């Protein structure tokens, strides 16, 4: 259907059907991103973290769950680079394996947030009127409430565990995706290429899918990159409080929480997982900031 219409269009109108010259200027923007040194640095760190997560079994000197009661609370050494914990487990190996859980949580959580927020924003922006007002009132309400506090209430009911933390945190923090998507939809829904699709008899769903959705992707990708570090911080905070990943799991917040009791005798247990969280969050922030500058300077105000 859409393909047929494209053939009938004049060559000059082709571009507006694609939704402006986005794809052409994208390469320009990517080169601007490359010049953003911090963003490149951030991207490299994230790729490294990804590789660590994939090759953790080969990189880790020990099994992250293997206990060694001759080596309890040993200080960092050649054999145990980050020392050992109270059950003689290798903290270095646990932190390496933790990157798997950290990345999985981040992407899953932000994916679900976008999965809730983007459709709401699309419908609100496209439908307008009462639907828009109702959905946006609801969105603003969710947006104005303290996410961590509400998530704690949900976890109290659902029970502790990583999956429940992901559910709770996504229920409370999708609002920004809806807001950004809606404002983008509002700015393009009366553009010519949408009118053209409407005139050609496309259904509303078809217009949303083929014409509007591709255009809201860019700001949402930027927003998602900026939401990833927040997601990691919040999820690991939940684990730190004891509501997320449960003990033997090598999750960074959980390792740190267990290490708190041994702060005086073995400060390394609590220190290294925190450092890992900070490095990954920092890298995501650098990348997100660069992406925002390159693709969507207006988001800065959001």
């Amino acid at each position: 259907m859409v393909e047929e219409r494209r053939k009938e269009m004049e060559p000059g109108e082709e571009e507006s059907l694609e939704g402006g010259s986005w794809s052409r200027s994208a390469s320009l923007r990517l080169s601007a991103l490359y010049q953003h040194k911090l963003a490149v640095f951030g991207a490299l760190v994230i790729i490294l973290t990804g590789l660590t997560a994939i090759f953790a079994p080969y990189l880790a000197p020990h099994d992250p769950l293997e206990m060694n009661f001759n080596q309890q609370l040993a200080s960092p050494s050649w054999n145990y680079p980050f020392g050992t914990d109270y059950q003689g487990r290798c903290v270095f190996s646990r932190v390496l394996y933790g990157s798997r859980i950290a990345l999985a949580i981040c992407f899953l959580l932000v994916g679900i947030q976008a999965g809730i927020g983007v459709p709401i924003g699309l419908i609100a922006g496209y439908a307008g009127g009462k639907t828009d007002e109702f959905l946006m009132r609801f969105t603003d309400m969710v947006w104005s409430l303290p996410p961590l506090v509400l998530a704690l209430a949900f976890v109290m009911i659902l029970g502790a565990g990583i999956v429940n933390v992901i559910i709770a945190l996504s229920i409370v923090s999708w609002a920004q995706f809806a807001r950004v998507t809606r404002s983008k939809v509002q700015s393009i829904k009366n553009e010519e290429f949408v009118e053209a699709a409407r005139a050609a008899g496309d259904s509303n769903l078809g217009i949303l899918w083929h014409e509007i959705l591709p255009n809201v992707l860019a700001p949402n990708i930027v927003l998602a990159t900026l939401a990833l570090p927040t997601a990691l911080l919040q999820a690991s905070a939940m684990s730190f409080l004891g509501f997320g990943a449960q003990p033997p799991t090598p999750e960074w917040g959980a390792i740190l929480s267990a290490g708190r009791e041994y702060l005086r005798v073995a400060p390394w247990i609590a220190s290294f997982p925190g450092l890992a969280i900070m490095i990954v969050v920092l890298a995501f922030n650098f990348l997100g900031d660069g992406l925002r500058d390159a693709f969507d300077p207006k988001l800065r105000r959001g």
Partner: protein
Amino acid sequence: MLKRLFTVLITVLTVSVVIFLLLRIVPEDPIELMTGPRVSDEAVAKLKSRWGLDKPLHMQYFTWISRMVQGDFGVSIVTQEKVSRLIRSRLPYTLGLTTAGMIISLLLGVPAGVISALRQYSGLDYSVTFLSFLWLSMPSFWLGILLMLFFGLYLRWLPISGYQGWTSFILPAFTLGLPQLGRITRLMRTEMLEVKREEFIMACRAKGLKERTVIFLHALRNSIIPIVVFQFLYLPWLIGGAVVVETVFSWPGMGRLLYDSIVTQDFPVVQSLILIIAILTGISNFLGDLVAAYLDPRIRLEG
């Protein structure tokens, strides 16, 4: 203005309904939780009618909310203490801590952002930018533990847990304030850079005003509006952060109380705390709007 107040009210009401439903329907029978399984049915029925749990749900809600409005927040299941008294004893500590954190982030963040913007692309600008990213990327529980290790256990300068006089404020307040400091610095720099290029600043310069006057009297005044609004809008996140920070430092505030009550499944306390936090959030959003309107007469308070 009235419409905004109305929105705040609607939000608080909705939260109250959600919180009521969530904590009343979903968890296990609260009576069983209180008494354990070895209690006769009659005793359970008696308790149920005492707590109003035998009535239909919407009636339970109205009873609960009208009591809440009158300041009767019920009794803690765990300690049998009055929830209102519990909260009243904890509230000042949390308000004090969040205020101290906000002040730290403003006092350090605003000058840092201004300097960074005035010396754009200098070595100083890059260091400030890097540092502010560092602050806002630190997990607060880790930052708290590091500060505790260094200033509490190693140097032994400051108390690390509980409240023992004003020095107890220092470590938790910085733990709460430093990530916020990173955000404020970034925002202040952006705003200052934008305002610097605006026409009225050029006009001030053209009039022959001193550069210092232009920056501090005109540019700063205009770029600080979003900062103040941001500070108020960000309060919910700060309160969320307070739960973590108070847990790390065993701070006797509402965040710690919330954590403890969730662990012990003390639902009257959790309900009341979340409702109060929602109200505080609504008030702070509203205040943010008010301050914005006061500082910038162009912002109208309609809609």
